[in-house]
């Protein structure tokens, strides 16, 4: 149900890093403090607003670039494709939505997975892409995450997930719900084998994604300001008939409520992850 807010806000969301087409240069307006930022500056600060520390949503490519050793990412399982097995049609056909999302993001679905190196240590990494149909989890997302976990079960390297998702993909009905159980079940095997799993919850991590693999890290890290929860704020407000307090369901709120181990700024994320991977890695030979 949490995906409700996200679908309602669709346009607004995609507007967040709206480019202002001022001739000559490219400028961006901060979603939070409304400062006008020079795009190059924003990029060199890893898409964190220098004025207010707002963490812009970023693409999987940007995340790889900011956090992992250059060119170390090797994508896996990139041939899997979603099918419209329910012949689902709302205001648009699922098929067409998929097509559009693929064109827009240049990705086959809402996640890429593979292995990458972080300060020379190999990790299994999955990065969700909110701009692909709200990062919603259908069969492909669930299958790729599961295969990524299976990869970790083979190579014994730590697993690092970056989540950003409105929840389950309604267009795949009950099958999308089952991906919650499938991925969590695979994590159960991972836990049994004592392979470390670090979950980095990015903005937003809601619904079926939050209520499955995202929350199950040995260590859960939040990005500053990330919205994280089961039900969406709008649904909650409708249910309890009151306005939610400022900061509700933000990463800092979850930290206080015991759900996250830490909230880490994007600037320090690479160091933090590299350190944790180093400390937890069962291989743990000096690199």
């Amino acid at each position, binding site marked *: 149900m949490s995906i409700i807010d996200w679908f309602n806000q669709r346009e607004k969301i995609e507007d967040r890093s709206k480019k202002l087409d001022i001739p000559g240069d490219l400028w961006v307006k901060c979603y939070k403090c409304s400062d006008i930022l020079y795009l190059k500056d924003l990029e060199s600060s890893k898409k964190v607003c220098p004025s207010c520390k707002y963490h812009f949503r970023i693409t999987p490519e940007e995340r790889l670039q900011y956090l992992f050793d250059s060119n170390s990412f090797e994508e896996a399982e990139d041939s899997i*494709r979603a099918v419209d097995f329910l012949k689902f049609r709302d205001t648009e056909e699922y098929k067409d939505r998929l097509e559009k999302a693929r064109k827009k993001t240049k990705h086959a679905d809402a996640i890429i997975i593979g292995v990458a190196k972080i300060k020379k240590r190999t990790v299994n990494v999955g990065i969700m892409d909110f701009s692909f149909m709200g990062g919603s989890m259908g069969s492909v997302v669930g*299958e790729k995450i599961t295969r990524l976990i299976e990869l970790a079960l083979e190579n014994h390297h730590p697993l690092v997930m970056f989540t950003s998702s409105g929840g389950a993909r309604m267009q795949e009905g*009950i*099958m999308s719900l*089952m991906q919650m159980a499938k991925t*969590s079940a695979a994590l159960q095997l991972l836990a049994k084998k004592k392979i470390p799993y670090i979950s980095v919850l990015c903005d937003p991590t809601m619904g079926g994604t939050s209520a499955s693999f995202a929350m199950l890290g040995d260590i859960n890290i939040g990005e500053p300001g990330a919205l994280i929860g089961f039900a969406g704020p709008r649904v909650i407000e409708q249910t309890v008939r009151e306005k939610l307090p400022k900061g509700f369901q933000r990463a800092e709120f979850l930290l206080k409520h015991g759900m996250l181990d830490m909230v880490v700024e994007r600037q320090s994320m690479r160091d933090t992850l590299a350190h944790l991977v180093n400390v937890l890695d069962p291989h743990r030979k000096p690199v």
Partner: protein
Amino acid sequence: MKPLDFEKPLDELYAKIDELRRLSAEGQVDLSDEIASIEKRAEKLRNEVFSNLTPHQILQIARHPNRPDTFGLSMLVFDDFVELHGDRQFRDDPSIVGGIAQLGTHRVMVIGHQKGHDTKEKIYRNFGMPHPEGYRKALRLMHMAEKFNMPIVTFIDTPGAYPGKEAEERGQSEAIARNLREMSGLSVPVITFVIGEGGSGGALGIAVSNRIYMLEYAVYSVISPEGCASILFRDADQANYAAEKLKITAGDISNLGIGDGVLKEPLGGAHNDWPHVSETIRSKINEDLKRYETMSPEEVFQERYDKFRSFGKFEDPVKA
């Protein structure tokens, strides 16, 4: 009891029959022929109505206020049900109930949602919408069941996990996620019956099971048709259509390979005959428990794991 919308013509016929019977009984006229004739028509209409229910109509039956519930079934299906309470952490959540019961020589842990019937109970049980502590109680009982080698039976009937403020504060996501992971690792069999409304993650949180049976007029869905309509169609009135598209009925769930069987309900729906439904459920459990007795804990685990591992429909040209 108020009839459901689509039952109204049927209900009118029954009212007519009752009236004629009363007249007959008063001895003024013999109306037995007329009664027989109308009864025949009613029977026919009933068969017609119930063999052509739309998903949205089925949803109404699934949500029927007199739908058999977890407590009722715990009493009717099993012997000596003893309720156990509490998550040992924060609260006893009345919207998920559980306890130990017996079935012949078997001991089982029964866990299920409880919506409540009258207004007071509904409020007390939060309309069957659990808080995190409900899932944590369920998990405690499941771990107890595993410890003492008891099969687990769960009954699903919830609109969903509660989308409230405190539920979020106390980690609704964490509680459900943990259950999914832990249930998948259990060494005892878990048999699930979706008896009413299978509402999304709120249902799945106690339904990572070896067997998932759907009562004939139960539903199981990733989102309520109303919710889906208002998001995707931006029009809550499209709930009928969404109910159809989402494939939420017992038949659909089985066709998709998720359900392991549809359990026939008495004509008119399970709310008309709880003992009938209980009998159906009991014999299903007995049948399954016999099978699980021959399986090792590892096989029980693996069966459930393989089941959920297989869920998903996609194209994979490489592995195809």
